[in-house]
C-alpha cells in the first residue's frame, strides 16, 4: 500500500473512530448525555485524535528514517494500521462518563496551534541552515578571502573561477541607490501632499491608485524595463539618439533597472511615510500654525523633523526591498560584474547572479553553483539587518508619540 493510500486509510479509520466514540459515550451514559463530563462529540473527537496523530507521526517517521525506507511497504502497512486499530480500541475502552474528553481534545488542539506558530521559526531555521550548510561546502572548495575581498567575478565552469561578491555588491547598491533617488522624493512628497493637503476625496482616489503600483507583479516591471524603458533610454542616450551623444550601448543598464525599481517602490515609500506623518500629533502642527508659520513651513520645520526617524525607517525598508528585488534586475540590469560609476552601463547584482548560477546546467557540487548559496546567505543577512534596524527605529518612533 503506498503512503498516500495508507494516509487515506488512517484518515478513514479515525473518522470511524469519531462516530464510534460518540456513540459509545452516549451508550455508557445510558442515553442521558447530562451524565457525561463533556459533550458527546468531544468523546468522538478524542478517539479520532488518539487514532490519527500517533499513526500519522509513525508513518512520517517511517518515511524519513533511511534504514526503514528500504523495508518493503507490506510490514509498514501492518504496523501502522495495527497501531491505529489498537489505539482505537484502547481509547474506546477509556470512555467513561468521567473522562474529561473536552480538556484532552483542547490540549491537543492547543498543541496543533503551537506547532503551526512555530512553523515560522522553523522556516527561518530552514533558510539559515540550508544556506549555511551549502555555504560551508562552498568555502571548502573556494577561498573565503577571495569571496569577500576579491575584486573580480568571473565564473568559469571548467573550474578556477574568480568568485568575489564585491563587484556584485557594488552593482546591487548602485541600482538600489538609483531606485531610492527616484522613489524617495516622489513617494515622500506624495505622502506629504496626501496627508497634509489633500481633501478626503483626492486622498480616497489617489492613494489606492498609487497602491496599485505595489500590487503589480515584479515580472511586469521587469518586462517594462527590458522592452520599454531600456529601449527608450537607448534612444535618448545611445548613438544616433535624441541627445546626439553615444553614452549607452545596450538597453540593459543601471539606470534602466533603477528607474523601474524606483517606480515600484513609490507606493511603498509613500504609504509607509503617510502612516508615519499621520502619527505626528496634531498639537504640534497647531502650535506651529498658531505662531504664524505657513503650512509648508510647519511641515518642513515641525512635522518632518518629528517624523524623521520613522521616515528613515521607511526608507531603510524600501532599501531592503530594492536589494532583494530579483526580476527587475534579471531582465533590466545586464550581466556584467564590474566597478563603474556610469549609470548607463550594464551591471549585475547579487540576486541576478543567484538566478544565473542556479538555473544553469552546472554540476551541483561545483563552487560555481554553490556560490549562489553564499550569495543568498549574504543577501539574507543584509536584508535582515536592514529590516531589524528599520523596524526598531519605526517602533521606538511610534512609542515616542503614544
Amino acid at each position, binding site marked *: 500500500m503506498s503512503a498516500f493510500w495508507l494516509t487515506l486509510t488512517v484518515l478513514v479509520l479515525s473518522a470511524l473512530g469519531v462516530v464510534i466514540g460518540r456513540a459509545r459515550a452516549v451508550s455508557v451514559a445510558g442515553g442521558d448525555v447530562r451524565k457525561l463530563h463533556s459533550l458527546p462529540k468531544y468523546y468522538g473527537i478524542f478517539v479520532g485524535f488518539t487514532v490519527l496523530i500517533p499513526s500519522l507521526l509513525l508513518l512520517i517517521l517511517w518515511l524519513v528514517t533511511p534504514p526503514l525506507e528500504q523495508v518493503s511497504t507490506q510490514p509498514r502497512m501492518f504496523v501502522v494500521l495495527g497501531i491505529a486499530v489498537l489505539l482505537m480500541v484502547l481509547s474506546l475502552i477509556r470512555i467513561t462518563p468521567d473522562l474529561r474528553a473536552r480538556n484532552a481534545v483542547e490540549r491537543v488542539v492547543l498543541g*496543533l496551534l503551537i506547532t503551526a506558530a512555530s512553523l515560522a*521559526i522553523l522556516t527561518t531555521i530552514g533558510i539559515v541552515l540550508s544556506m549555511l550548510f551549502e555555504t560551508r561546502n562552498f568555502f571548502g572548495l573556494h577561498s573565503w578571502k577571495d569571496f569577500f575581498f576579491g575584486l573580480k567575478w568571473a565564473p568559469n565552469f571548467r573550474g578556477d573561477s574568480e568568485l568575489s561578491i564585491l563587484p556584485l555588491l557594488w552593482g546591487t547598491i548602485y541600482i538600489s541607490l538609483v531606485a531610492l533617488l527616484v522613489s524617495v522624493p516622489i513617494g515622500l512628497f506624495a505622502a506629504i501632499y496626501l496627508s497634509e493637503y489633500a481633501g478626503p476625496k483626492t486622498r480616497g482616489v489617489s492613494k489606492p491608485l498609487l497602491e496599485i503600483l505595489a500590487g503589480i507583479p515584479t515580472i*511586469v516591471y521587469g518586462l517594462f524595463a527590458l522592452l520599454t524603458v531600456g529601449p527608450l533610454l537607448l534612444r535618448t542616450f545611445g548613438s544616433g539618439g535624441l541627445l546626439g551623444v553615444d553614452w549607452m550601448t545596450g538597453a540593459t543598464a543601471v539606470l534602466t533597472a533603477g528607474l523601474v525599481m524606483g517606480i515600484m517602490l513609490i507606493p511603498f515609500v509613500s504609504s509607509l511615510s503617510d502612516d508615519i506623518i499621520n502619527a505626528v500629533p496634531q498639537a504640534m502642527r497647531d502650535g506651529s500654525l498658531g505662531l504664524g508659520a505657513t503650512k509648508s513651513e510647519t511641515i518642513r520645520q515641525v512635522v518632518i523633523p518629528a517624523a524623521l526617524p520613522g521616515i528613515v525607517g521607511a526608507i531603510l525598508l524600501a532599501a531592503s526591498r530594492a536589494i*532583494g528585488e530579483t526580476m527587475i534586475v534579471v531582465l533590466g540590469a545586464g550581466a556584467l560584474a564590474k566597478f563603474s560609476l556610469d549609470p548607463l552601463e550594464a551591471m549585475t547584482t547579487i540576486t541576478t547572479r543567484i538566478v544565473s548560477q542556479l538555473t544553469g546546467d552546472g554540476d551541483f557540487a561545483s563552487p560555481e553553483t554553490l556560490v549562489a548559496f553564499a550569495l543568498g546567505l549574504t543577501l539574507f543577512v543584509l536584508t535582515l539587518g536592514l529590516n531589524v534596524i528599520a523596524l526598531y527605529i519605526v517602533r521606538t518612533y511610534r512609542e515616542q508619540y503614544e
Partner: protein
Amino acid sequence: MSNPLKTSLLTLDARTKKRNAAETRFRAYGIAAIGAGLAMLILLLVTIFGKGLGAFQQTFVTLNVPLLEEKLDKNGTRDLEKIKKVSTFGYAPLLKKAMEETLTEYGIETNLKSKKQAALLSKSAAAQLRNYVLANTDMIGETVEFTFLANARVDGYLKDRVTRESIANDKSINAAQLDMVDALLAAEVIEKRFNLSFITGADASDQRPEAAGMGVSMLGSFFMMLVVLALALPIGVAASIYLEEFAPKNWITDIIEVNISNLAAVPSIVFGILGLAVFINSVHLPQSAPLVGGLVLTLMTLPTIIISTRASLKSVPPSIRDAALGVGASKMQSVFHHVLPLAAPGIFTGTIIGLAQALGETAPLLLIGMIGFIASNAPDSVASGFLDPNSAMPAQIYEWAKRADPAFYERAWGGIIILLVFLITMNTIAVILRRRFERRW
C-alpha cells in the same frame, strides 16, 4: 521693512510674498509627485494593453488541402500503422500543393518557389495536418478545408510589427512573400481573428511563436495556488489564533513575533534557495513540480496571512470573548465558536491578497526549475497536475521575454494581461468581501 509705517495690510511685503511663493511651490511639488506616480501607472497600463492585446489575435490561413493518397498511403490499405510512418516532412508537399492551387484559384502571380510560398504557414501546420489524417484515415484522397496558423512574420506584418523596412536583414521572409500576403489578404484567404489557443494552448518551441499559449502554465499556477490555499490558510490561521489568543507574553513568543515580521520582508529569491535546498535536494521531491512551487510559495505567503489574520482577530472586541466565557464556554470554544467566525471576512480578505501576491511571484520558481519551456504538455490527471513538471504564468512570461524572436514579446505582454486579469479579479473579490462583511464595533 525700513519704514514699517508705509506698508499697508493689503500690500504684501517682500518676505511674505516669498513665503507665500514657497508655500505654493511646496504644494506644487506634492501635486507633481502624485502626478508622476499616477503618470507612471498610466504609462505602465497603456504599455501593457497597447502591446499585449495583439496577442489575443492571430493570423490564420484557410487552405483546401488535397490529402493525396500517393503521398500518405501508397498501398491504399488505410493501415494506421503504415500511415503513421509518414512523418511531418511527408506532409510538406501537400501544403505546398495546396498553397499553389490557392494562388492559381485567385489568379495571384508570384515567382516564388513553392517552398517559399508554403513558408507563410506556421511550422506547426504539417503536424496539424498529420494529426487530422491520423484521426480521420477515411478522408485520405479527399480535399479538406483547413485553417492553419500563419507564420509569426506574416502575423507581425498584419500587426505592423514587421514592415518592409524591418525585414531587410531577415532571412525568414522577403518582400515578394509580403506581396503574396497582401494579395492573399485581399482574397480573404489570410485573415486576422481572435485566437483562443493563446489562452488555452501550451508553450511552443523557439521556432513557432505563433503557436505558443498560456494554458498549460495557467494550470501550473492553478495547482500551485491549490497547494498554497490548502496549507497556508489553515496553518496561518492556527498560528495567528495561538499568537493572538493563547500565547503567554514571554521571550519565546516575542521571538516568534519578530521572526514573522522579518520573514515577511525576506526577499522572495531566498525562499527559492530554501525550496531548492530542502524540498528538492534533501527531501527529493520532483523538480519543477507545482507541488514544490506551492510549498515554497506557502512559506512565502504565510507571514502575510498571519499578519492580516492577527489584525482581524484583534479587531473582534473582547466583550465577545467575555460573553462567551461568561455563559460557560471554554477558552477554546469562545475562540472557535465566536471570535473566529466574526474574524472570517478579514481572514479571507487577507488570504486572497496573499494568494494574489503568490500568483505573481516569479523569482523562487526559477530556482526550483519551473521555467517556461516545460509547459508544453497539459497534465492528464490531478496527480500529474501536482507532480509533473510544469511552469507558472509569471515564469512563462519570463521565458518569453528571454527569447530572441520579438514575436514572443507580444505574447509576454499578452500573458501579463491574463495575469493581471486574475490579480484584478482576486483583489476585487477581496475589496468586496471587506466592504460587505467588515463589521465596525
